[in-house]
């Protein structure tokens, strides 16, 4: 076990060294960060590398917090984030001599999802908050079957959690019995296979589960753009300073403004900005 730990540490050190060396090369773009923005970044990367053979783009998904950290440590060129940078992160970036520039690339709504067999189709924000803070513990209290609610949340490391925490919980503490999982796909998987579960995911991850109306509004591109759906948020890419026109980095980051970029964003299940 200890030996394995050693090897892991060495590998991690080597990995950091390599990515640090790669960042900064004009034709190599390293992208790291949110698992929510990941699909967009990957689709962008594929499209851009198809057009420009000389450019090499690597996309990692390690969570918004890790993305910010990588940008601050100059280990990536683009940090993808599903929440704005915190003041503490901006300060850390400043201290490291990095000017984090924000690009809003798309909009995302958080869908509150339940098992397809669940009879509920609408919850209010207050009800969702009560479920997650432990005031409501049984579907019976909401007029459903007599079943204990299995509350599933993203880990506190994710931007999705941060958004849910601000938009729905308003910083109230999650109940102790809430289960934490490490990705949008894992929440969907858990809710799909668990009758009494409730979870929250990005709009793109609702296949096979039932997404609820919130305050009577169904989550969709239209309602998010019209700002009537209450659990919605912008998605970000951060770069170090303004990108220079004509560079590969500039082309990649500004793809979201092109017609092709908007089509890609729609294809991955998000909503392009107007």
């Amino acid at each position, binding site marked *: *076990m200890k030996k394995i730990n050693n090897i892991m540490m060495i590998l991690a050190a080597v990995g950091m060294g390599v990515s640090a060396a790669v960042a900064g090369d004009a034709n190599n773009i390293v992208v790291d960060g949110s698992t929510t923005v990941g699909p967009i970044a990957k689709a962008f990367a594929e499209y851009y590398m198809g057009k420009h053979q000389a450019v090499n783009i690597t996309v990692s998904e390690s969570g918004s917090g890790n993305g910010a950290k990588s940008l601050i440590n100059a280990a990536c060129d683009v940090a993808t984030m599903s929440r704005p940078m915190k003041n503490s*992160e901006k300060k850390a970036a400043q201290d490291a001599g990095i000017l984090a520039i924000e690009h809003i690339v798309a909009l995302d709504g958080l869908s509150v999802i339940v098992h397809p067999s669940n009879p509920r189709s609408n919850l209010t924000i207050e009800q969702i908050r009560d479920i997650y803070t432990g005031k409501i513990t049984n579907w019976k209290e909401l007029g459903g079957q007599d079943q204990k609610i299995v509350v599933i949340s993203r880990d506190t490391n994710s931007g999705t959690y941060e958004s849910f925490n601000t938009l729905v919980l308003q910083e109230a503490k999650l109940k102790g*019995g809430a289960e934490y999982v490490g990705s949008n796909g894992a929440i969907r998987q858990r809710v799909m296979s668990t009758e009494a579960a409730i979870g929250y995911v990005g709009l793109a991850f609702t296949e096979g589960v039932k997404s609820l109306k919130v305050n009577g509004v169904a989550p969709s591109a239209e309602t998010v753009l019209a700002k009537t759906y209450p659990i919605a948020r912008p998605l970000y890419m951060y770069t170090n300073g303004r990108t220079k026109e004509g560079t590969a980095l500039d082309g990649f980051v500004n793809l979201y403004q092109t017609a092709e970029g908007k089509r890609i964003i729609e294809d991955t299940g998000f909503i392009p900005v107007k």
Partner: protein
Amino acid sequence: MIKNLDQTNVTAGREGSSLLLSHRAQRQQRITGLLGSGFLLAVTSLSTFAVLFIFYFIARDALPFFQLQGFKQFFTSTHWYPSASVPEFGALSIFIGSGLVTLGAVLVAVPLGITAAVCLSDVLPFSVRQVVKPVIEMLAAIPSVAYGFFALVVFAPLLQEQGGHILKVASWIIGSPIALLTIVVASDMLTDRMSSVHRARARWTWMTVLSAVAFWGLWHLGNSLGSITITSGTNALNVSIILGIMALPTVVSVAEDAIQATGRELREGSYALGATRSETILKTIIPAASSGIIAAVILGVMRAVGETMVVWMASGNAAQIPQPWYNVLQPVRTLTATIAGDMGEADQATGSARFHVLFAMALCLLLFSFACNLASEWGVRRTRRKVGR
């Protein structure tokens, strides 16, 4: 090791002088010898230093947490909200989660593992053992993320849909052999002092009565377990079973080595005194190998307590003490999963107590496995001394 090398050098030197090597050649030889053993020493100590360095760096980052937050909250509170605006770092429920999952894994791995070890070394023919042991050891070669995927995608939904039936069948499978053994031993003991005239009949009566009681008990246990519905399949039970299977190869292989190490003489001596095979195994071999078996159990515990991927994927990660504490059907959170899951956000920039608390947990884990390691080392040594090797 080094001593030996030096000695060979000395003898080589002596042989040299008898062959009349020049002083210069002798000196050269001695220096080469010293360099060689020095190099070997450096290589050997490299891994030792690595362990010491890990210890040092983890302790260095763990201690600031206790300076910042003190000991009380960490060890006695169950409020784990590291990302809240007023963060709370109560890790008690996480310690209990780790403990519960490890206990569960031990309950799965130890009976199975020791039975398998005895079977491999003393029951199965040698040719079969040569095939079966590598197959069991292959369990160790499966990457833990594969176990985790299985636990999350296959086992958790299965527990939710068929939980009651699975528990019922499991209670019969585990309960019947235990009940059978207890009945045989108990009726034996109860009738031990009777005169030989009535003994056989009394024994049969006791056996029938006890069997009826055991059957009644198991029937009710099975029915009450069968009526349970498991609301969430990612829970302590799921992880315990998977971790138990993961710890199995370690337990089997170390315990089997210990049982083998007791030697042929002991077995032959036992047979010579007229003991049957089962008496030899139960009364001679297992007691003789007991320290080694304890070492196997401890190594199994270490495997279970240190496993990360499976618990992160399939334990539910809920920072709560189950109600009641042994309720393995509720989700729990373990130390390893917390370290793995919270590392990303736990930057020095975003709140340093949150960063250091993970190292405090790592230090606790490290100290625990260090103690386990010492204990198992002691066990292995004791077996060797006992059998005189």
